[in-house]
């Protein structure tokens, strides 16, 4: 009962804010709503019982990625554009393609059934064993990926005059 109420709240928040990101002309509003969507998604993870993932979601998405995107918003100011200029020219075509697929997928996703196994406990310990035992190699590769991203971005951002 209480779960269903929270779920309904989160769905409204997530879908509404997500639509706002796409539809708002004002980019600062879009950024705020994006952060709100991330928070709602963390709430969804909590409903699923994945509390560690929910915390990571807030830490990475709200605490770090939103800050980066805000920097992007701040460093690329745009003069006020007329509303007509903020969609691409092919918008109707894109909407025409996306809408049927979206409706089909959303309807289809209701056909998934829960497992019969009961609810599971905390997710931190199995997560850690999985990452460090079964996924040791991808874990190291992740660090190389981060290193590559760091070096690449520094090269891109660095001014030439230094």
């Amino acid at each position: 009962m209480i779960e269903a109420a929270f779920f309904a709240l989160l769905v409204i928040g997530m879908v509404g804010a997500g639509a706002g990101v796409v539809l708002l002309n004002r980019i600062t509003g879009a950024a705020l709503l994006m952060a709100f969507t991330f928070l709602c998604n963390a709430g969804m993870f909590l409903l699923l019982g994945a509390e560690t993932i929910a915390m990571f979601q807030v830490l990475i998405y709200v605490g770090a990625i939103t800050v980066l995107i805000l920097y992007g918003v701040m460093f690329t100011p745009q003069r006020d554009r007329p509303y007509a200029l903020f969609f691409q020219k092919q918008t109707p075509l894109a909407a025409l393609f996306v809408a049927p697929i979206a409706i089909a997928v959303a309807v289809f996703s209701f056909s998934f059934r829960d497992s019969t196994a009961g609810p599971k406990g905390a997710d931190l310990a199995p997560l850690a064993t999985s990452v460090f035992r079964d996924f040791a190699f991808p874990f190291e590769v992740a660090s190389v990926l981060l290193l590559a991203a760091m070096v690449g971005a520094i090269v891109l951002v660095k001014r030439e005059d230094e």
Partner: protein
Amino acid sequence: MVPGPFGLDPVLWAVLRLVIAVALAAGLVFNGALAQIYLERKIQAIIQDRTGPMHTGPYGLLQTFADAIKLLGKEDIRARLTDHWFFLAAPAIVFAPMLASYVVIPFAPGVMGADLNVGLLYLTTLGSMTVLGIVIAGWASNNKYSLIGGLRSAGQLISYEVPQIVSLVTVVLVVGSLSMTAIVGSQPGLQVNALIIPLAFVTYFIAGLAETNRVPFDLPEAESELVAGFLTEYSGMRWGLFFVAEYGEVTVVSSIIATLWFGGWHGPFTDVHPLLGPALGVLWFTLKTYFFVLVFMWIRATLPRFRIDQLMSFCWKFLIPVTLVNLLVTAILVLAFPTSLVPVAIANWILLFVFAASIPFLQRRRLVSLRARLAAREHAVA
């Protein structure tokens, strides 16, 4: 469902407990802010050989209440060029996570909002949300001072978050749990973490000072260069909420220090009586927390402010490598000696002394390179 005290209905008790917890936390934040503003002014005054507020009430005790009422009655000005969405959202984004931190703060056994399995992770997560509010506040004002203050503040907060979290992870390594209750439980008697991993405590303390924008890291509000930083365009109650949030943040950081390194509610006589014990626990916890709040104020009255480039290079070139080395050394020793924490403690104390001793050395090197650069420039000019 857990039945409540005095035979209360479980559902009713669950709701009632929630309401009580929220009300207590909100009351604590506002009273704490009022008390700390008064304390701050008095302590500054004592250190600088003044008397501080004296006229409103006995010893000026009512001064902060008068200030709070004045803030409520002040005109709320929103400059014409500000960004509406961000300007409105910023105080809420700073205030709400700060209040939510109080959920996991362990005042005494059983006297805490909720004992989350991932309590410490939850606290770091909320700490990282503050940055968002400050960047937004700085940018929304559309004021050059605010913007630079906001950018500086964001740079400072995100940088110092890394050593802060790594210091916390060092504690988790030794304790082996993220639950605040378990962390307190792991430090009975005099075996507090401050004796076992003092270097992590020192690095967390420095990073905590920076995270709460306190002197010597209060660059965003450096009034000599930036007026009031990201707060320049804020007035009246909006400004007041930022202020309350800052003091709440100080309390949260102090209580994290008290919990993680100084044994939380542990203290003499906590096991004498099932009802008196928790009350004493709350007392010990509050005393430990406020001790660190007072240390923060003492530091404010003593130290000058850093320069922004010094601040950033101190974090990235010194503090982060030190915390990472500390983490790895602690990990190796914990694994090598699984039964005893004495080797960890010895290594950590040695590292702490090296840390403290290296600061004058680094300063001298810095000064030498600075002089060399100045001399080269003079030579070039001549």
